[in-house]
C-alpha cells in the first residue's frame, strides 16, 4: 500500500507537469500564426509586413486623406508616420475620435496591392486611453518635429 501511495502522488505530479507543458505547447502553436504584430508605415515600406497575415498598423491619419465612398460606410485614408505612408480601407463605423492628424491603430491585413484592409479601427480616445505603442510613436514624432525645426 505504501508503494502504491507514492505512486499515485507521482502520477498526479506528472499529470500536472504534462498539463502545463501541454498548455505551453498549445499556446505556442496557436500564437505562431495568430498573433498580430504592430507595424508602422516605415516598417511596411521596409518590407517588414507580410501580405495576408493579421497586423496592427499604427500611425497618424494624414491630413486631407480621408475619402468617403459612395456606399456611405466605407472610408479610405492614409496612415503616415512621417517618412512613409500606407493607404487603408475600412468598412464600418469609424470611432468618434477618428480625425485627420490624429493617432490611429488599424487592425487588419495588408493586401497584395499594398492597401491595408482594416477590420477594426482604434482611435485615440483621450490621453488616459491611448495604446502605449501609439503613445511612444506620437512622442517620437513630436521629438522628431522639434528636432527638424
Amino acid at each position: 500500500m505504501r508503494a502504491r501511495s507514492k505512486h499515485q502522488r507521482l502520477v498526479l505530479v506528472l499529470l500536472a507537469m504534462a498539463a502545463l507543458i501541454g498548455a505551453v505547447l498549445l499556446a505556442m502553436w496557436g500564437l505562431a500564426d495568430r498573433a498580430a504584430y504592430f507595424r508602422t508605415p516605415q516598417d511596411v515600406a521596409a518590407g517588414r509586413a507580410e501580405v495576408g497575415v493579421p497586423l496592427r498598423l499604427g500611425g497618424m491619419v494624414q491630413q486631407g486623406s480621408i475619402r468617403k465612398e459612395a456606399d456611405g460606410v466605407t472610408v479610405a485614408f492614409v496612415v503616415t508616420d512621417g517618412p512613409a505612408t500606407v493607404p487603408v480601407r475600412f468598412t464600418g463605423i469609424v470611432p468618434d475620435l477618428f480625425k485627420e492628424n490624429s493617432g490611429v491603430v488599424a487592425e487588419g491585413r495588408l493586401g497584395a496591392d499594398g492597401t491595408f484592409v482594416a477590420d477594426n479601427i482604434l482611435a485615440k480616445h483621450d490621453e488616459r486611453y491611448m495604446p502605449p505603442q501609439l503613445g511612444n510613436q506620437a512622442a517620437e514624432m513630436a521629438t522628431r518635429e522639434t528636432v527638424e525645426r
Partner: protein
Amino acid sequence: MIAEAGLAALWLAAALAVLQLGVAIAGDRLGDLRRIVVPVAVAQGLLTLFAFAMLIWLFLITDLSVQLVAANSHSDKPWIYRFSGTWGNHEGSMLLWVTVLAAAGAALAIFERRLPAKAMQATLGAQAALAIGFFGFLLIASNPFARLNPAPLQGQGLNPLLQDPGLAFHPPTLYLGYVGLSVAFSLAVGALITRDVGPALARAMRPWVLGAWVLLTIGIVAGSYWAYYELGWGGWWFWDPVENASLMPWLAATALLHSVNVLAARGGLRAWTIMLAVVAFSMSMIGTFLVRSGILTSVHSFAVDPERGSFILMLLLVYIGGALGLFAMRIGSVREGAQFDPVSREGALVANNLILTVILGTVFVGTLYPLFVEAVSGEKMSVGPPYFNAVTGPLTLILALLLFIGPLLRWRRDSRPNLRRIAAPVMATVLTFALSFAVWPAMSALARLGFAVAAGLAIASFLPLAGRNLRRTPLTIWGMVISHLGIAVAIAGAASDAALTKETLVAAAPGEVHRVGPWQIRFNGVDPVAGPNWTAVEGHLVATRGDRAVRLDPQSRFFSDPPTETNEAAILTTWDGQLYTVIGHQEGNRWQLRLWWKPIVTFIWLGGGLIALGGLLALIGRLFREGRRRRGATEAQEAFA
C-alpha cells in the same frame, strides 16, 4: 477634514496589520495575549471600511481640493456617477481592493470557528502580510486622499464610458470575488505553516472559495453584458487583457472549488488543493498588476505610471514567490491523501482540474506573450480573439463533454460505470450534430460542435437528480446541476452569437427600409436630445417582424467633460434573441446604421447567471448544513451536561 480622517484611518489600519502579523509570528510566546489577533483583524477591517466611506463622501460632495476628486469627478454629474466614480480611477479602485482585503480578513476572524487556534493565527498572519504590502502601495504610491492646492473651480469629469449604472456594481462585485480569494490563499499558507492539511482545512476553505467564486462569476458576467451594450461593438467578450485578468482567477477558482470538495469529502488531492489556492489568488494579484501598472492597453488602465508598476511587481514577487517557496519546503511533509482509482469521481475531478489548468495556461501565455516578446526583441504585437478562440474553444467543449459522466461516477472507485445512463445526452449530441448540417450547411466546426455539446449537456446536467427524491435532494446537488446546466446554456448562446448573427451595415436616408435577419427596419430620421451632462443625436427606427412593430432609438452621445463621444445602442430583447442597433455618423443626408440580429445571444448571460446561481445555492446549502450541525453539537453537549 474628511480626507485627513480617511488618511489617518488608513495609516492606523496599516499599523494594525503590522501588529497582527507580529502577534501571529510571536504566537504562543505571547500567552493569552495572542488572542488579540482576532479583534485586531476586525478593527483593521473596520478602519479600512471607514477610510473607504470617507472617499465616497468626498466624491459625493465633490470636494475639489482633493486631487483625486478634481481629476475624476465633476459636480454636474448625477449623484450615482459621483458615487460610483469613487472607484472609476486608479487610487479609488486600489482603495476598494484594499478595503475588500481587510474586510475579508475581518470576516474570517469573526466567522471562522472550525479552524484550530494555531492554524487561525497563522492564517490571520498571512492575511496581515498581504494587507501590509497593499496598504504600503496605497499610502506610498497611490494616496487617494492627496490634497490639491489651490483647489480648481471644477473637476475634469469621469470617462463617459464609465458613466453607466454598471460601474456601480461591476467593479465592487468583481473585487469582492478577486480579493475574496485572498482568504483561500491565507488559509493555504496557514495550513502549510502549521503542517495541518486535511479535510478540516478544506471545509473551512470551501465556503470562502464558493462565495468568492460566485461573486467573481457575477462580476464577469455583468462586465461582459456591460461591455456588450455600452461599447456598441456588438461583441460580448473581447479577450481584452483586463477581461483575461478576471478570467484567470476565475478558472483557477473553478478548479479549486472542485478540488476542495475532494479534500473535504475524501481527504484526497491535498497538495493539489493547496497549490490551487495559492495560484487562484496569485492570479488575482497578477491581474491587478496587469491592470493597474498600465503596461497593457485597455480602457481599464487609468494611468501609466512605472513607479506603481514596479511597486506592484515587487509585491507580486514577494507574495507569490514566498507562498511557492513555502509550498516547496513544506509539501513533502504533508501526508498523502486518500487513494482513488483513475475511473472515479476523484479521477473525473482531476481531469476537470487538468483541463482548466491547460485553459488557464493558454490564456496566461497569450495574455503575457506580447510583454515577453517586447522585452526580448522589442517587437510590438497583440494577441486577440483568433488565438484565444481557437485555443480555448475546443478545450471548453472537451471539459463540457467530461461533465456528461463526471458527476455520475462514484467516489474512490467506479470499476464499471453505467454508461447507459448517459445514452440520452450522447444521443442528443450526435443528433444535434447531424441535424445541424441540414439546418445550417455552412457553419464553423467549433460552433456546430458547440451546439451539439450544449444540447447533450443540457440533458446530462440533470442526470445526477435521477433516482433521487427531489424534495430531499440537498441544495449542494441542486447547485451543481444548475451550474452545469448554465454551462450548456452559455455555450449554446456563444455558439449562436458566433455562427448565426446577421449583420447589416448601411448608410440610410430617412424613410428607407433595411433588412436584418427576420426584421425589417425603417429609418425615420434623427432628432437632437440632451441629458444631464451630454447632448446626443437620436436615431428613430421602427423594427417590424410579422405584425409586431417596435420603436428603437439608438443614440450617439457627446459628453463635454471630458470631451468624448459614445454610442448608446438600442437593444430589443425578444424570447429568441436580440436586435442590436447602433447609429453612426452623418454622410450627406444619410446616417450610418449598424444593425445586428443575434439569435439566443441572451443565453450567454443567462447561462452565466445560472452558473452563479448554482454556486449560491451550494453555498447556502453548505452554510445551512454547517449551522445545523453546530446547533446539533451544542444541543448534544448540553444534553450530556
